């Protein structure tokens, strides 16, 4: 698959909070000649952090493959709760990790997931502004609320541009991804504010999308 196509899929996966390692599997399929049984289980790209390898998603039976696509580690990991995504797969030692061009591509693709996270929060915020009544009218009628929706859109669009740029400029994909995560996060912040107190409750669940952006940022946002 073309990287940009994977990015489109990744954005949609982010929008629907797809919790399976779909996106990572698409990337692995782009990079490696993987055995079907590995693909079936879902492959997870990993990042080297200090002396550990960290994968962005929890998946039962994470497969760690080397540059040739051979499985170098395939073990069950302990179940993680949804809100506690890191560390997900910790494998000490000298495994070939995601680096160079592949790391750049992973940054571009997971930046796209973050844009999807901003998409869904904006969609929900618009729906909320249309339903929630205060002062005898839906709050969508207030310009302050309308401008927050516009700001959420502006940040989300900028985040998407940064994700696309990350896919084109591998040499600074870390900077682009960091911008995409920051902007996706900002977009979500506006969405939470539009929701008011309700947006701050666990039950409404906006934090899942924010969490996902924060988590992806810590894995793929680079050091800046």
């Amino acid at each position, binding site marked *: 698959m*073309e990287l*940009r*196509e994977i990015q489109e899929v990744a954005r949609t996966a982010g929008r629907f909070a797809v919790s399976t390692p779909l996106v990572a599997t698409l990337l692995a399929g782009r990079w490696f000649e993987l055995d079907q049984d590995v693909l079936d289980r879902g492959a997870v790209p990993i990042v080297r952090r200090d002396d550990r390898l960290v994968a962005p998603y929890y998946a039962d039976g994470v497969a760690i493959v080397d540059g040739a696509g051979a499985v170098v580690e395939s073990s069950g990991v302990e179940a993680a709760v949804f809100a506690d995504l890191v560390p997900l797969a910790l494998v000490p030692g000298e495994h070939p990790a995601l680096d160079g061009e592949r790391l750049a591509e992973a940054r571009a693709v997971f930046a796209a997931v973050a844009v999807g996270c901003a998409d869904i929060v*904006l969609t929900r915020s*618009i729906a909320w*502004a*249309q339903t929630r009544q205060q002062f005898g009218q839906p709050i*969508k*009628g207030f*310009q302050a609320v*309308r*401008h927050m*929706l*516009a*700001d959420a*859109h*502006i940040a989300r*669009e*900028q985040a*998407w*541009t*940064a994700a*696309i*740029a990350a896919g*084109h400029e591998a040499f600074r994909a870390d*900077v682009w991804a960091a*911008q995409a995560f920051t902007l996706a996060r900002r977009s979500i912040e506006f969405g939470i504010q539009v929701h008011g107190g309700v947006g701050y409750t666990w039950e409404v669940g906006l934090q899942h999308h924010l969490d996902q952006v924060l988590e992806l940022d810590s894995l793929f946002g680079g050091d800046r």
Partner: protein
Amino acid sequence: MTMTRFDDPAADRFRADVSAWVAEAIPAEWRDGRQALGPDDVQRIQRSWDEALFEGGFAGLSWPEEYGGRGFGPIEELIYYEESSKANAPDGFGRIGRVLAGPTIIAAGTEQQKKKYLPRILDASEIWCQGFSEPGAGSDLAAVTTRAVKVDGGYRITGQKIWTSFAQYSTRCLMLAKSSTELPRHHNLSFFLLDMEQDGIDVRPIRQINGEQEFNEVFFTDVFVPDEDLIGGEHEGWAVAMTVLSNERGTTEAATRLVEATTEIDLLSSCCSLDKPHDAVRLQDRKELLRWHILRATEEKAAGEDWFTAGSVLKVQWSELIQDATRLGIDTRCPIHRDYWRHSYLASKAMSIYSGTNEIQRNIITDRVLKVAR
């Protein structure tokens, strides 16, 4: 689907051509001693720059070839602006003609209007201004009250326009005026190509908060426009103004502002007193993001998207970026560049106001892009 045009070897060759031409074309007195030039010299150089652009073939980069243009896309335009800015090229007076009047005439003009006006815009023998805003019609542009009264053979125009850049040098004005007092809003305006060299026109410069007098208020008293200088249908001027302006203004304006942002941020990065280099790096990153956003918008426009879906986001982006840059410039408290930053800080205050205030842009986004009914 991919934005590879920038990596295109043809784009690189074009960049080299522009860069070589600009280096050659900039007058030495401007390049080497701009600070020492008086206002008359600056004016003379700006005028000669319009002519140089025409002679060099850079006046109508994105105009179709059949109208004397080069038939290029916004990417070449962006490259031109980047290279001319790097070389500190002067700005001519012909900008409104090249960017607004020309594309409007190409899109909505009659064959006769195209033949008559386009060559004079390209060679800058006519300078254009834009008669849109009025004291009572700023953000609410459709509320213009300058009257166009139908008379034998044409119209008589009476009213006041404001924020009219280049009016003092202009021979033609893109005039939006109210041609009907009965028809409903948005269907009561007409768009004219008005001759500025006639009696009844009074141009008064407005002094700005940065001390410059770039724009004017212009009073029109019983000024004549012949029928053949009506553009688009009678009473359908609003549609002409909106479709053409929103489509043509976006990329070009964003490209010129990107270039301005580059100037400010590059200076910031090298400013002796900058104690927060990290902030300057962030601004550099945001400037690169703006550049890519222009490319992306260009790509989407080519794919048939309405320009306004990206145009409002771009407007907010470039204006806030430049304002943040000049604010940081003031914050450096740099003794060497103090006057420079004070001036550009004040100048940047206008950016969130003109070309549609940023509040209007946010309204457009919520109304027309997100489609949230009020």
